[in-house]
C-alpha cells in the first residue's frame, strides 16, 4: 500500500523549534468488525521519530488509540532556520515513511 506524504511545519522562534505534523494513516484499532462480523485487524503507526540534522529530537511509541490521520506537535531547542527536520514513522505491518522539511 502506498503511503501519503506527511504535512510538516517546523518554525524556529527564540531558539525553540515548534513542529506540527499531520500524517496520513488509517490507524485501525483491531476492535472494529466488518459487516460480516469479522474483526478488522489492527493497523497503526507504532513508532515515530523526529531528527534535526540527524540528531534525534523526539522518539514516540503509539498504540492504536491515536486518532486516524494522526496529528503531532512538539518542541525542541538547538535547531535553527534552514536546518533539516526529518520525521519518520513505521507501522505494525512494517510500512514506513520519511519526510523532510526545512526549519523556517
Amino acid at each position: 500500500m502506498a503511503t501519503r506524504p506527511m504535512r510538516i511545519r517546523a518554525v524556529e522562534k527564540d531558539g525553540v523549534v515548534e513542529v506540527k505534523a499531520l500524517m496520513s494513516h488509517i490507524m485501525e484499532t483491531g476492535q472494529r468488525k466488518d459487516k460480516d462480523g469479522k474483526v478488522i485487524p489492527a493497523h497503526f503507526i507504532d513508532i515515530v521519530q523526529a531528527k534535526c540534522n540527524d540528531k534525534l529530537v523526539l522518539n514516540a511509541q503509539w498504540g492504536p488509540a491515536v486518532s486516524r490521520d494522526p496529528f503531532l506537535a512538539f518542541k525542541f531547542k538547538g535547531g535553527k532556520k534552514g536546518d533539516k527536520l526529518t520525521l519518520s514513522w513505521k507501522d505494525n505491518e512494517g510500512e514506513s515513511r520519511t519526510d523532510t522539511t526545512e526549519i523556517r
Partner: protein
Amino acid sequence: MDQQRRDVLRLGTVLSLAVVAGVLRPEQARSAQEEWNKKAFDGHTVDDVIKAYGGASAADSDKLALTAPDIAENGAVVPVSVVSHLPKTTQLSILVPNNPNALAATFDFPEGALPEVSTRIKMGKTSAIYVLAQADGKFYTTHKEVKVTLGGCGG
C-alpha cells in the same frame, strides 16, 4: 593483498561484536528504544503501564499540565496537550484507562527536546485521561475527566 582483505574482514567482525556486546552504546541504546513496548501497550490500568516501564508507583503532581476538553463530542478525535514542568522529564505517556488498552502514546525526549506534546487520541467512552511522566527516574501522574458523547472505538 590477500592479507589486507583479511584485515578488513577482521575489523568488520570486531566492530559487529562490539555492537553486540554493547560497547558502541549510543546506537545500541537507540535500537533498543525502537522496539515497540508491547507489554506497556497491553496494560489495562495505569499501574500496569507504570510496571511495564519499570516503576512501582506514581505520585500526583501539579507540575504536569494536561489540556483536554471537558466534553468530547467525537471520541474518535480528542485533542490532548501535555506539558511537564518537572525537571529532567524524559518521558510522557498519555493513558485512557477505560479504553480496551490503557496506553495511547508514549513520548521520549532526548536532550534538547522540550517535554511538551500535543496529539489527538481516541476514547471509547467517558474516562479520565491520565498523563504519566518519568522525571529523574521517578514517576508522576495527573489526570482529567473527559465526558465522551460518541465513542471512538468499535463500530
